[in-house]
């Protein structure tokens, strides 16, 4: 079950999606077993920005059909706060490799976002100095300050961005692609050309909800979310994720982290089958905080298809 990814040896192929598991809060909320039986084989931080961000005004959540819309707005302490306060607390998480075997340290992946190449560079340079950080993930779903479009939606822009930050770090560089684009495989290729070591997808799909129409209540027709629009995650997007991951894995040589709506080992298996190397679990952790460990277990259970992804997979 152990798997190597960009030079990192992981106990199993399941990690968390950025922004869907706050290990520090979880350590406070749960009794002590979490630290030594961490559900994920690698830990991805929430998106960190240069400056602290408070995030969007509430409400931030909406339950959709078989999914969740969030409009969190990337609250975080900012780069300095993260490096000074959070990173030391995150180091030393360990995960269980096999029942009975030695627990294994969980590599930390830091997810960062800038709104310009300059900001991304500053973030990457600062992270490069910290050895607790095993790899970097660049969240390029942020709106370009000039065009308003996602920076990551245009293959050429994305290639240039990656090319600019690539020389600044020797750590593995993962590009978290945006799914809100015409051709995600072209974007992945752009990232690879620019020097990315891996790509991850899918992020949430742009979505919206209105205040419930209640004949006796306030009129409908107004955006429910404080941030007006949000991102859809969960089972509703799984089939879209599978198509995007398959398209990307067929196009690029670098490893792919697949995610989107995974709830079970069978779902993870499908992403691996279409070419992902690792699988991230997001929204399902909200329903079951130990989902990551459960899914890793289900994946390892021979009855559910332990065999390595077959050569003649769907790619």
């Amino acid at each position, binding site marked *: 079950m152990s798997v190597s990814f960009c030079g990192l040896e992981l106990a199993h192929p399941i990690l968390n999606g950025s*922004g*869907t*598991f*706050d290990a*520090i*809060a*979880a350590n*406070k*909320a*749960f*009794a002590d*077993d*979490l630290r030594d*039986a961490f559900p994920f084989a690698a830990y991805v931080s*929430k998106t960190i920005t240069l400056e602290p961000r*408070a*995030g969007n*005004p*509430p*409400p*931030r*959540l*909406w*339950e*959709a*059909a*078989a*999914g*969740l819309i*969030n409009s*969190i707005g990337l*609250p975080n302490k900012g780069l300095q706060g993260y490096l000074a306060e959070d990173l030391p607390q995150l180091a030393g998480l360990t995960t269980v490799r096999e029942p009975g075997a030695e627990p294994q340290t969980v590599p930390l992946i830091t997810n960062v976002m800038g709104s310009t190449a300059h900001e991304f560079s500053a973030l990457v340079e600062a992270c490069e100095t910290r050895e607790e950080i095993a790899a970097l993930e660049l969240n390029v779903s942020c709106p370009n300050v000039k065009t308003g479009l996602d920076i990551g939606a245009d293959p050429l822009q994305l290639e240039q961005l990656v090319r600019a930050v690539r020389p600044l770090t020797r750590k593995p560089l993962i590009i978290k692609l945006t799914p809100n684009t015409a051709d995600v495989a072209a974007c992945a290729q752009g990232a690879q050309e620019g020097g990315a070591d891996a790509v991850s997808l899918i992020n949430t799909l742009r979505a919206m909800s209105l205040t419930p129409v209640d004949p006796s209540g306030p009129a409908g027709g107004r955006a429910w979310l404080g941030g007006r629009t949000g991102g859809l995650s*969960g*089972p509703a997007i799984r089939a879209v994720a599978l198509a995007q991951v398959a398209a990307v894995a067929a196009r690029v040589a670098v490893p792919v982290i697949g995610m989107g709506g995974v709830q079970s080992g069978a779902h993870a298996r499908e992403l691996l089958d279409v070419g992902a190397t690792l699988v991230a679990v997001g*929204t399902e*952790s*909200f*329903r*079951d*905080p*130990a989902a990551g460990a459960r899914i890793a277990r289900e994946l390892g259970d021979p009855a559910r298809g332990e065999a390595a992804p077959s050569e003649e997979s769907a790619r």
Partner: protein
Amino acid sequence: MSRAPFARRLLTVAGVDRLGAYLVLRVEDPDGPQPEPGQFAMLAAEERWGGGEGERPYLPRAFSVARQRGGEAHFLLEDVGPGSRRLCELGTGERLWTLGPLGRGFTAPPSGRRAILVGGGVGIAPLAILQDRLQEEATVLLGFRDGARAEGAALLEQARVATDDGSRGHHGLVTDLLAQEVERDPLAVVYACGPAPMLEGVRAMCAASSVPAQLALEAGMACGFGACFGCVVPCRGGGYLRICVDGPVIDAAELDHVDAHAGAPA
């Protein structure tokens, strides 16, 4: 603070009691951690969670622990949507997923100071377990929309009741009763849970009288353990607090106002 095991637990319904417009769901939990007053759990029925109109509920729902005794955890339910409705339909012997106890509960008053418990609607739930645990006798003031809901007052002992429609007790707001109490005893400590307008009324009144108040807030939650950053309320001085880990009980002094979305179902 009591901490939850890092796993959902599948618990069995011991019984369901009707309490006017509300239900008390009693769940067998002889081995679970002892919750503190104000803590909550994320609940989801084992079966038929999902589907139905609009394919909801999908995520678990937050409920205050209303009482924990005799190997049972009690929850006070009001049917306000697909998730609470499904939980209201549970029968004895059926099972539900439970994650908890979660969050930060109430802090006991300094000894010698009187506790005033102020509840509105289904928000009275965490005040019941608080009353159970308080060493000294507390004053209990509960407000309800109507007579059927006012029957919920039986969850606590010696409650004074206010109803919006005057069908029981004081005809008006529970904050009217609170005003009298605060005036009479400015050294009291207030513990409140209920709809947002009630909580805002309590907050403003206590701030004006310099009476300390602990408010148990509510907000739509996805996870209940700090993972999603979804359950926030704006706090004094800017920024937001996560109700599920920084609360649900928040010191009123940390708030400029109670967010309109941060109360119990009205």
